[in-house]
């Protein structure tokens, strides 16, 4: 454990003396645009992956909710597989493993597929717990006023399920954006990649790490704030407290 940490810090050049006399503002202004570009990439791939995760998750949750025979088993296996393997390993498989089977995907495709594979299971669990939280009698009282099955889902079950799911869904969004920090293993110039690159090239460890932290904060803080506002709105307005 200790050895590993030392190796890591060595890799990041934390012991480098040059950077210890205050922060180099010029360096930051010079390389900030690189972080902006990287942040754009992280955001773009993250957004696509999260959107697809939501779709996969919703479909997975519906399969489980309706207890569709064979698909249900497949989804259960997928969820276990996805939740119990690190994204890093999933990306390695996609990027280095698939070509051995003759399937070559671009870095971006690998990143999106990997993130979706990981996120889909988390989103599925979030949607599922929301759907299960709605009392069965709600379904029946919807039916008994003449609504058909899909109307009951749309007007009665989904709104209630969603408001239960929202906290978990928001937590997943933040979790998935953080997970994008391993994208550099498939040769994508994301935030992590840029930071490592700058450290490796110029030994400006403090500046590079500072910008890395700030970049993630700029991305994640607003999402976090929106998430908590959303949760509060759903809790108070939606159900009349």
């Amino acid at each position, binding site marked *: 454990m200790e050895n590993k940490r030392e190796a890591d810090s060595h890799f990041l050049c934390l012991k480098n003396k040059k950077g210890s006399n205050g922060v180099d503002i010029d360096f930051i202004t010079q390389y900030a645009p690189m972080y902006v570009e990287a942040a754009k990439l992280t955001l773009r791939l993250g957004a696509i992956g999260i959107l697809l995760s939501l779709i996969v998750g919703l479909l997975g949750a519906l399969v489980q909710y309706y207890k569709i025979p064979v698909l249900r088993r497949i989804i259960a296996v997928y969820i276990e597989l996805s939740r119990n393997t690190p994204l890093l390993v999933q990306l390695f498989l996609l990027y280095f493993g698939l070509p051995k089977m003759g399937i070559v995907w671009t870095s971006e495709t690998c990143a999106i597929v990997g993130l979706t594979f990981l996120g889909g299971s988390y989103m599925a669990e979030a949607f599922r717990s929301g759907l299960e939280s709605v009392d069965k009698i709600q379904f029946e009282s919807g039916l008994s*006023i003449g609504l058909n099955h899909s109307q009951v889902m749309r007007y009665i079950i989904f709104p209630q399920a969603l408001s239960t799911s929202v906290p978990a869904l928001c937590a997943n969004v933040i979790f998935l954006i953080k997970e994008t920090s391993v994208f550099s293993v498939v040769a994508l110039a994301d935030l992590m990649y840029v930071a490592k690159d700058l450290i490796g090239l110029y030994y400006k460890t403090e500046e590079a790490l500072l910008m890395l932290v700030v970049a993630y904060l700029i991305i994640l803080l607003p999402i976090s704030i929106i998430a908590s506002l959303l949760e509060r709105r759903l809790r108070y307005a939606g159900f009349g407290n």
Partner: protein
Amino acid sequence: MKETEKLLEIRHLHKDYGEGTILEDVSLDIHKGEVVVLIGPSGCGKSTFLRCINGLEPIQSGEIFLDGENIIANKTKWSEVRQKIGMVFQSYDLFPHMTVLDNILLGPTKVQRRDKKEATAEAEKLLERVGLLDRKDAYPRQLSGGQKQRVAIVRALIMKPEIMLFDEVTAALDPEMVREVLDVMLELAKSGSTMMIVTHEMQFARAVADKIVFLDGGEIVETGAPEDFFNSPKTERASRFLHTFTFDQVK
């Protein structure tokens, strides 16, 4: 007793949940304008009976005719049948994410595609009748149990069903509200609607019923006019059941 055409005919209904039989060979006619009160000990199958009638529970055998049409068929459009059979449950299960008014308007606007203004006006009229007009913008969580039950009744009434099924609706009502609800029900009966009411409140049953149906152990044991049934039940089982309610008076 009104002798008009049959609205609902139940023939040899048989229901089980896999283990034991819940309803055995139950046959019952309900005529237009008739108020039938279903009574019987807890667990005898009253709720199950109502749920079978509007298709919430599949039945194992038997037939149910609504307006002469067999609704126990594969091609039954339950959405259409259920508009004709209003149901109010024991547990006033309003939709918690909607206001009182939206709860009531969901059926008329989404199922019957009625004009929202017209439906709103009727909803407000009905709410006023049950004394809850001032609560129309409240959420269910902000209402008492009794208030919720009255909203649930309005939600079913607004669909203008041909028959209303009530599963112990008075159990959660404040005593002073029972009369109001009863008046609404009677008015509906007068205007041609029909009702089947499950209740444990014998005074209420006596006041509202044209016909009492006594269910015990999943079968209809006795049927009769309220006066006859309560004063001189024909069966031993019915009189034993009624005794559980008259215990205080005997002392």
